[in-house]
């Protein structure tokens, strides 16, 4: 394997670390209404420095297949990063584990206090509104505003059926 290939692979392997640093800076500089929206913007924007770094390294001699490959690998890692961030932001299991670690949850009965059901639903509705996926009318009724997450939910339901989940 030649040096150029090794460096190309190394740049792609380290791209999630670069993305994390970029995201950490963005969190400190940008006050966003939605943490999830900010991370998505960071993932998309980081395509630019990644392509610039590869273009500079290969002195403009990149072919289309190499650029497509790099974008596929980076964006797949970016998607993983988005999910990792989402776990830290929204996952019930992560919140429970952290609650046990911090001593806020000692018994299963403590969960209802630590994990308030009503505010949990409210937080999710607020997040969906902040993302522009749903909107709330004056009479308190939520309606679909955009179709991105709705389509994702349909796709996930399709794969669930394929895997035999009820």
């Amino acid at each position: 394997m030649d040096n150029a290939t090794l460096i190309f692979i190394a740049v792609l392997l380290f791209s999630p670390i670069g993305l994390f640093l970029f995201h950490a800076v963005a969190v400190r500089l940008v006050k966003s209404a939605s943490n999830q929206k900010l991370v998505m913007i960071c993932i998309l924007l980081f395509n630019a420095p990644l392509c610039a770094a590869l273009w500079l390294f290969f002195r403009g001699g990149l072919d289309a297949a190499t650029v497509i490959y790099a974008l596929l690998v980076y964006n797949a890692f970016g998607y993983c990063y988005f999910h990792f961030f989402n776990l830290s932001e929204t996952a019930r299991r992560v919140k429970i584990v952290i609650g046990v670690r911090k001593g806020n949850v000692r018994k299963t009965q403590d969960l209802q206090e630590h994990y308030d059901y009503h505010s949990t639903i409210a937080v999710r509705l607020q997040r969906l509104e902040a993302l522009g996926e749903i909107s709330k009318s004056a009479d308190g009724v939520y309606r679909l505003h955009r179709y991105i997450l709705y389509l994702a939910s349909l796709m996930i339901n399709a794969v669930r059926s394929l895997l035999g989940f009820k």
Partner: protein
Amino acid sequence: MIHLQVFVCAAVAFVGAFFLHVLVWRIFKPRNDINALGLVFVVLPFVAGVALFFVFREKFPLAHFVLSALLYLAVAAAYIQTYPGMRSNVPTLVIVNLVGRSKSGLTVEQIKTTLTQEQMVQNKVEELADEGFVTIAPDQSIQLTARGRTLASIFITYRRLLGLNEGAG
């Protein structure tokens, strides 16, 4: 630098692993599905890939093998990250789905009739116990295992490095 062969090999590996995943999950659902996913999407393809590389190493250069493996792993990791949401009905997606299917929209109370308190919290503790992150004693006290402590530390440190408070869950 990248040949079509690299894309084709990665795609074939992913389709093969996904097919095996569907087959295994339809025959029996592994209790510890994260480990099973690791086996189906990482361990088995790695073993098969190395074996195939040694068989075809004269036609398939090492660089192509490594580049195929990297692309495959990136896509497989993306799928593995999506899987927990598929298994356990992510509330956010359930809400969007309910609202999307309703022609006249839904109120919070109507959403709560589908997303019950038990689904939201209690099942999660059982899943954590099944996957070896916590143990639940007969008196219902919850203890973190070494795996659970590691998981908690990773997320606490990650949020701290990002400069964010603990997620709202």
